[in-house]
């Protein structure tokens, strides 16, 4: 009885681990519409830590960008509070890193507000960026 229970619990936890293993990468992946918008250069990383529409953009794209930015802002606010920093400081820091991790072909914004296409070279970032 006892061993049976243990075995069942073990199987259950193994299943949970397997499930989490499947779920985690799925959660980490970008929405296909977002990924496509990035690759096509319709959206880009702004210097302030938020996503921006490079040019044009229909209502659906605007909604996609707004949704992501609302989530980012909530995340920045929470993490900034935990780190005893301001929302702006945290967002700027995240912006530095988000621009640094753009893939070649994706768009990013320079500190003076110009949209640039990322190449294999280092992006032009705020002088305060690490």
């Amino acid at each position: 009885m006892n061993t049976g229970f243990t075995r069942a619990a073990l199987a259950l936890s193994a299943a949970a681990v397997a499930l989490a293993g499947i779920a985690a990468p799925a959660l980490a992946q970008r929405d296909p519409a977002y990924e496509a918008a990035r690759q096509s250069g319709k959206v880009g990383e702004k210097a302030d830590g938020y996503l921006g529409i490079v040019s044009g953009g229909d209502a659906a794209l605007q909604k996609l960008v707004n949704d992501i930015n609302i989530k980012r802002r909530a995340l920045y606010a929470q993490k900034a509070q935990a780190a005893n920093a301001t929302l702006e400081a945290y967002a700027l820091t995240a912006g530095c890193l988000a621009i640094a991790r753009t893939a070649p072909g994706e768009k990013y914004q320079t500190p003076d507000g110009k949209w640039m296409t990322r190449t294999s070279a280092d992006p032009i970032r705020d002088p305060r960026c690490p």
Partner: protein
Amino acid sequence: MKVAKLTNPACRAHKVPMGGVRRAGTAMMAMLGSGMAAGCISVSAPDKPIVIELNINVKQEVVYRLAPGAQNTIEENSSIF
């Protein structure tokens, strides 16, 4: 004698400030003149637009302090980055 001694200082007291004011005025005019002749600073408008950095109050040391944590935050929430 006594009368003359009393009136004279009173007369000086009136005249000295008057002369002083006139002298100060002359000195000011001289300063203005020399200032215009030598120490002029010319200010011209820049040809590029002035960019006002809104995040100027964010210090570099703060960014450096936050960067490691922010890197983790981005990796943990990569679906929105």
